[in-house]
């Protein structure tokens, strides 16, 4: 589904990714772990197409398409969902309006008719319930006044509604209390653990992986993957620290 080859990327002319290779197939859940500054968030932003993150070498193919040929909104329409470590507040635009725009924009991209208000609301209610999110909150402006945990749950509701093929989730577990962590973890499983979907979890900690069991764990250090393994690698990291495992 996603093949990254020899990816090099810079932010403000500073090289961050230095030869990243990663291949993700449908039905798989991958986790990228690594110390601060290794390039974890950069990986997500580069794949999502954030301005200022410049690809200097290498390629990424998503569903047979050159990902870097696509604009950010086209990548989303192609089925890529980037979960933000710090979801952005958009004053004056309600969650429901935002998501209906997003979903219908993606549908338009695939020559599908827009969902009616009623159809959309039914879908939104279903996905909000999955994440135990009150519909009243869905009427509020995007992420404005939301706690850290509410923002992350709102992200998962967005993912449920937009129904991507591949979700890249950047530190979805940060800022979550134990209950919210479980709800988000279960949400990821319910929405994304399917034979035709895949997930790339970017995280510092094992704790999210207790809920969302990865098939593969990769250690990112200094802009490239230095070690890959099964779920046991995450436990090993938790025990020995990055220094112990990477050294």
């Amino acid at each position, binding site marked *: 589904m996603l093949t990254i080859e020899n990816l090099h990327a810079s932010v403000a002319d500073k090289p961050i990714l230095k030869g990243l290779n990663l291949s993700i197939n449908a039905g798989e859940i991958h986790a990228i772990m690594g110390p601060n500054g290794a390039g974890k968030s950069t990986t997500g932003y580069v794949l999502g197409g954030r301005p200022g993150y410049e690809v200097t070498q290498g390629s990424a193919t998503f569903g047979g398409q050159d990902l870097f040929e696509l*604009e950010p909104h086209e990548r989303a329409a192609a089925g890529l969902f980037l979960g933000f470590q710090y979801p*952005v507040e958009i*004053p004056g635009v309600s969650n429901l309006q935002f998501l209906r725009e997003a979903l219908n924009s993606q549908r338009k991209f695939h020559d599908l008719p827009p969902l009616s208000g009623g159809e959309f609301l039914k879908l939104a209610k279903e996905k909000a319930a999955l994440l135990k999110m009150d519909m009243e909150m869905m009427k509020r402006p995007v992420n404005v006044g939301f706690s850290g945990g509410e923002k992350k749950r709102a992200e998962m509701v967005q993912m449920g509604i937009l129904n991507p093929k591949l979700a890249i989730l950047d530190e979805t577990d940060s800022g979550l209390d134990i209950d919210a962590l479980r709800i988000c973890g279960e949400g990821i499983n319910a929405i994304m653990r399917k034979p035709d979907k895949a997930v790339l979890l970017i995280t510092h900690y094992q704790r999210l992986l207790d809920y969302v069991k990865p098939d593969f764990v990769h250690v990112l250090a200094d802009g490239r993957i230095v070690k890959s393994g099964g779920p046991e690698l995450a436990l090993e990291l938790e025990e020995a620290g990055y220094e112990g495992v990477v050294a």
Partner: protein
Amino acid sequence: MSNLPTRKAEDWRYADLAALEKLWPLPDAESITVAAGDSFACAIINKGGVTRLSLTLEAGARAAVHVLNSADAYARIEIEATLHEGADFTLGGVQLAGGAQTAEIVATVRHMEPNANSRQILRSVAAGTATASVLGKVYVAKGADGTDGQQSMRAMLLDRSATANARPELEIHADDVKCAHGCAIGELDANGLFYMAARGIEPARAKALMLQAFVAEAFDGAEDEDHLHAAAQAALEALL
């Protein structure tokens, strides 16, 4: 005023004088008096040229004026309101200018007697090499104690080549007065635009959504709010 103004005149400093010359002489302002205790509301959609309105609010009268100013070349709205005791005046204004257009709202509110309230919420969007200006004055006469006058002016620049001017002005001759004014000029939040793109919203649509949210406050509570929002949305989409 019978002669064409020059830029030395404060109220005309940012005007498009070449366009103004073709419109000169301007018709007198439309005068409306809201009788004591009465209410008045109106919406003005100005698509070019100069629109002038002069309101007198007698004791305890209420008036709400909402304006949408979008230029074909030059668009100017002048509003004057004279407030007597206990009157209440709201001005909500949105102006949108693109290309090489010039749009301006010039508002003068005079608190002549005690205990009147006024609030002005003015939002400008400028793109291309357009100029959007807001000149707002609140005058509080001697003895007009208990005045509450508020001005909020914000402008959004869509291109670095666009210009926004905001000039809030207070002239206060009374002692017991609450007057607040704020003004800010900024650009659309790049993080917000990327967030919207990352969810699949096309860039022009994302900008339109953010700008709609930006101007919406000016039309809150307007009598024909939906109509104004729709007109603003159409003008915004034309701008992008």
